[in-house]
């Protein structure tokens, strides 16, 4: 095996690091749900490096596709190229519920310290929100029922909040209805509890969750400091477990990303 050649901070873009860090979350053999954009880069990079046996499911209904041109959405015809099965949402979501999915890459507009994510509305909800976002999609379904989820997000103070405006996607402490008391995810899901968010990867750092399901700082990307991260988080962030600097991309990884996966420059422009 070739020796790893790590890039210097000026030799890669933020999106490269995000893709690489996300790819490293994939275990070989994982069944992975991925969405449009960075998740696609991450799962394909993983398949081309550390996890050749990982299987990718796109929620529009393709299973284990082997695209030779990068899809631009999960409904893209490219997702079906040399796929094992092309079915539909009911099939792949039933597989998710049955427990087939190990890992998923998700995103969000806001996240709180328990990993609850908002993709629905900013500034209230009833009678109407200040800002209406896209809505949930499959984010909360996947986050609820996959074994591990990894969020890829933009690091901004207004996005890392003590409490998100609307809990679209369930983290580690969530409301138990009908009364809405905040409890551990286990108490809501019972025998169907399988896990939850294990990492949040941003343009500044990688976060993980402790035994109580509280977010902590795991590694800081090259070129940023712990204080940079703290200044871009609106809750009291635990930085005591920080392991140091995020492993930068290698030249080999960038070559795969730019030459094999996205040579057209769709996401890596």
């Amino acid at each position, binding site marked *: 095996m070739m020796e790893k050649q790590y890039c210097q901070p000026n030799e890669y873009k933020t999106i490269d690091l995000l893709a690489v860090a996300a790819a490293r979350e994939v275990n070989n053999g994982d069944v992975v749900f991925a969405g449009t954009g960075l998740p696609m880069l991450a799962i394909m990079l993983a398949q081309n490096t550390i996890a050749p046996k990982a299987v990718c499911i796109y929620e529009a209904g393709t299973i284990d596709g082997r695209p030779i041109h990068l899809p631009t959405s999960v409904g893209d015809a490219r997702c079906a190229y040399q796929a094992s099965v092309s079915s539909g949402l009911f099939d792949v979501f039933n597989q998710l519920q049955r427990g087939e999915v190990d890992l998923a890459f998700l995103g969000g507009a806001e996240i709180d310290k328990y990993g609850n994510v908002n993709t629905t509305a900013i500034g209230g909800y009833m009678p109407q929100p200040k800002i209406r*976002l*896209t809505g949930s999609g499959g984010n909360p379904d996947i986050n609820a029922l996959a074994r591990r989820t990894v969020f890829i997000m933009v690091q901004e103070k207004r996005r890392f909040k003590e409490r998100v405006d609307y809990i679209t996607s369930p983290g580690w402490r969530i409301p138990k209805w009908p009364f809405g008391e905040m409890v551990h995810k286990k108490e809501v899901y019972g025998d*169907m509890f399988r896990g939850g968010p294990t990492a949040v990867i941003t343009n500044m750092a990688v976060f993980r969750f402790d035994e109580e399901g509280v977010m902590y700082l795991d590694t800081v990307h090259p070129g940023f400091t712990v204080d940079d991260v703290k200044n871009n988080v609106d809750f009291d962030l635990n930085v005591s477990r920080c392991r140091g600097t995020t492993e930068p991309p290698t030249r080999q990884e960038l070559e795969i990303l730019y030459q094999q996966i996205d040579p057209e420059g769709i996401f890596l422009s």
Partner: protein
Amino acid sequence: MQKKNPKIISLTEAVGMIQDGDMLTFSGFTIWRRPMAFIYELVRQRRKDLHLVEVNGGTHTDILAGAGAIKIWESCWAGHELYGKLAGNVSRKAQAGELLVEDYSHVHMVCRLAAGAMGLPYMPTYASMGTDILNPEYDVLGKAGLRDGSHAKIPRQKYRMAQSDFYGPTELIHIPAARPDWCIAHVQYVGEEGTIRVMGQKYSDEEAFKAADKVIVLAESVVPEAMLRQEPERNLIPPYMVDYIVELPWGAHPTGVYGNYEVDGNFIRDFYSRTRTQEGFDAWAEEWIFGVKDHVGYLEKLGIDRLETLRANPGLKYSTKVVRGKR
């Protein structure tokens, strides 16, 4: 259910059957295989107060929202994928309180249509528990007084908690069925008698078709029935579940059709950027909906070169001629 074979009719006639206030669902997924020509014609015929119940929304939803044609939207997502990060018109109308948005999750919405398709009042699921989707204070149709049982298509509850101890105690939810008045679909092949074949991803088309009371299908091609029946395991829907057929090549533009044509990303990006305001939407609609006479006029305005660039490579099922990235 005793039915005649579906009728082949014109787009104008098909849209003419939709009443103000009807509940609609659609084929496709986000910006793929949406019955766009039908959407344009709905706007052209100025249909209003529509009640959309769809697994997810896309450019079609945003156009209907911009035109003020939607009163209630029950779904989980609307946007334009890579070509517009949210559905600007849906958001604007929702923020103005001019559109009732009932949020579910993807699984919830599939369950709603699946239950309708199966003749059940609900589907059980574990999906998206512990979220504000299930917050009783956020039951939009309930708070609007629409869950009193007087609206045949609106369930009395947004969802129900449920328990089971078949294999030890467990808690889950029941999601109410949806039975739209109409499913409006766009597919690759319809047989002359009405058999439907969908190629590539089927998204949630099967559930959408089967949940609806009536079905209108736009087809890229109406083909000999016997051709489809040569391999019946590849077909999705039998004729007695189809009411009307419109043969309409390119009828899903600007959304994409597996094996036929690509998403027209430039078109959608242009729509998104021009319609963030109502004035912008109105101008866009003037140009692309009211300013063209019909579907053929729309295609002529697009031009043959643009269409041919979008046309799928028959081996790959997508276009290799579209410039997608920046390198």
